């Protein structure tokens, strides 16, 4: 028996050995969108079914991978389907069928999604979610992310969030707001009744660090102090309130320490601090009275990117934590600021002042391959400012602030370039947007 198996295996493998005649590289495939149809939501619950479906269509449509089909047969269906129904729908041009159902359990709403690949009637996804959010948006975002991951093997932006400061509250105050990837459901998280600045996410997304111009407890003087807000406890804590600037807080990838800007000797320099606020290490000192600000740590935790005016103008630098020798990255432009690493550590995105306005630029981590990502005029014909860029956790998008409509709004664009999509569209202004890591 073993012999037969061995021989069989050999004979099979000989097919490969024979395949040495003609060899053809077929090349890159053409691309097409997959067609998706969504069945009516079965069952009864307080969930707003229309919002649920609408958000799913928005998400999957934004990916550009899918095209939704309004199929009469699908509209009649509810619950499970059999093989003959699946084949009939497939022949009408539908590739994926989403079958949602819902139920209420106490205060929670249950939603189950089954996604069928109609060819061969394979179940691509079967997942049940619970939520107290009756709008259905949260569930739609989580489902969209799971659906994308089931097909592509990679997480998407749909279950991520953006943090930004905004003047939504009025009185000239700027508070911290967190919103969905598409600007939906903006939620205020800071209540300083003051100007909050430069929020940044912790590696797992459970905390944000930010600065706010608040009264310094010891001296009673208004000061830019550094705070941490924890989404799990919904509490904030003061991390650093040293005299002068306590700003530019950003977490190390391991979440155990932070980088920040302090003005201990009268000029801003970069320091590494612990989660209790104590200084672990001073990273820059001058030269002279030059400033070193806006630190961002590379995803591998080995390199620091920052801006400094040591060359006379604010330019971008990187510095290895091991040798602490700054390397100038940008030479072009009059003013380059706000460097932010791509998730793979290969790129840095920043805002550069050129032609009397700020635009978003990307470059390789060594300063090569500089590329302008934005250039948009306002209705008045003047150039708009595009600032405060950050990468999405999948590296496929960049969020930024632009005043192209007259108001400072949040936009996202593909990291390869192209048109930007406006995420916020209201009468308020937004500043310092940062994209979250993947959230659970």
């Amino acid at each position, binding site marked *: 028996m*073993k*012999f037969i198996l*061995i*021989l069989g295996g*050999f*004979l099979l493998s*000989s*097919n*490969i050995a*024979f*395949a*040495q*005649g*003609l*060899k*053809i*590289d*077929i*090349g*890159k*495939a*053409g*691309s*097409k*969108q*997959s067609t998706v149809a969504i069945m009516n939501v079965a069952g009864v619950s307080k969930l707003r079914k229309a919002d649920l479906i609408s958000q799913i269509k928005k998400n999957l449509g934004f*990916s*550009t*991978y*899918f095209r939704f089909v309004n199929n009469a047969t699908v509209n009649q269906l509810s619950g499970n389907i059999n093989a003959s129904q699946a084949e009939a729908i497939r022949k009408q041009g539908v*590739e994926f069928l989403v079958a949602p159902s819902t139920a209420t359990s106490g205060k929670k709403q249950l939603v189950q999604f089954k996604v069928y*690949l109609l*060819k061969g009637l394979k179940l691509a996804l079967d997942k049940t979610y619970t939520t107290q959010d009756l709008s259905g948006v949260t569930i739609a975002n989580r489902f969209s992310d799971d659906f*994308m991951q089931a*097909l*592509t*093997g*990679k997480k998407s932006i749909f279950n991520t969030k953006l943090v930004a400061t905004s003047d939504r509250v009025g009185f000239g105050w700027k508070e911290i707001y967190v919103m969905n990837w598409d600007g939906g459901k903006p939620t205020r998280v800071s209540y300083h009744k003051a100007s909050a600045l430069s929020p940044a996410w912790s590696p797992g997304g459970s905390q944000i660090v930010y600065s706010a111009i608040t009264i310094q407890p010891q001296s009673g003087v208004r000061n830019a102090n550094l705070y941490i807000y924890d989404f799990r406890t919904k509490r904030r804590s003061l991390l650093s309130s040293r005299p002068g600037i306590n700003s530019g807080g950003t977490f190390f990838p391991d979440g155990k320490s932070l980088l920040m800007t302090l003005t201990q000797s009268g000029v801003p320099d970069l320091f590494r601090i612990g989660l209790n606020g104590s200084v672990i290490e001073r990273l820059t000192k001058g030269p002279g009275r030059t400033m070193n600000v806006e630190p961002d740590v590379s995803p591998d935790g080995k390199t620091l990117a920052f801006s400094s005016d040591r060359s006379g103008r604010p330019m971008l630098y990187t510095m290895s934590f091991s040798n602490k020798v700054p390397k100038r990255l940008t030479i072009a432009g009059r003013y380059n600021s706000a460097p932010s690493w791509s998730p793979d550590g290969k790129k840095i995105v920043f805002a550069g002042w050129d032609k009397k306005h700020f635009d978003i630029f990307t470059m390789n981590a060594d300063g090569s391959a500089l590329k302008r990502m934005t250039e948009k005029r306002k209705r008045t014909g003047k150039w708009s400012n595009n600032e405060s860029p950050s990468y999405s956790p999948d590296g496929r998008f960049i969020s930024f602030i632009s005043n192209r409509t007259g108001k400072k709004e949040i936009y996202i664009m593909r990291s390869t370039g192209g048109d930007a999509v406006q995420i916020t569209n209201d009468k308020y202004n937004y500043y310092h947007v940062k994209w979250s890591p993947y959230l659970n």
Partner: protein
Amino acid sequence: MTLTENKKPFFYSVGFHLSLLVLMVVRGYYSSNIPDFERTVRVDIIAMPDKVQKIVEPKQVEAPKEEVKKEAAKPKKVQTKSKPKPEPKKVAAKAAPKKTEKKAPAEDFKKSQMSAFEKLAALKAAKVENELEEKQKAIAGNRIAKGTDLVGVEKIEYSNYKSTLHKAISSEWDLPKWLLEGDLRAIAHIKIDEDGNLIFKKIVSSSGNSIYDEKVMEAIVDSAPFSPPPSKFKKIVFYEGVQLAFP
């Protein structure tokens, strides 16, 4: 453990090696006269060339060549062609001029005898040269063989056929956009009969994604039947098949 059980592995081994032999013989039979698709220079390794160089070297025998020519016409070809061991020729060459210089009419017999000796020597030399030539053939060094590289019309036919297959399959090669961003690659093996019909298809190197592999097979099936292969390649695409890399 019985004796029969002990012999089992031996029989397995014999069986396996016999089947291996059969397989190789069959493969050798079918793959004979199959052209190489990749341009190559084939070198037949016969022997190291050092020995041949030593034999070819001596050119000092050229001087007596003319003498030998005069008196032994037959060996002429041999001498100009190859370079034998110089000794026999030298003997013949040295002897001949001495006799002509003396011009002794009384020694005609001797002369004719000498001439006969010279002839014999020359013939001997020619014989030696022939032997050497044969030896040379036997121990000739690495040579560039004619090879099986495609040239002329065959090459054009091959290029056209490859291009036809590529065009047919790539026109059916579509992927969902969500699969394009993954760094996936699959290799398929197909066989085609003389009329261009697809007679065998198999993924020999999977992408790891079942849908990607399915799309590869779909592209192959949807692009068949193909154009009939040119006569030179019928055997190849039927027995050896075609390896398709996606992308």
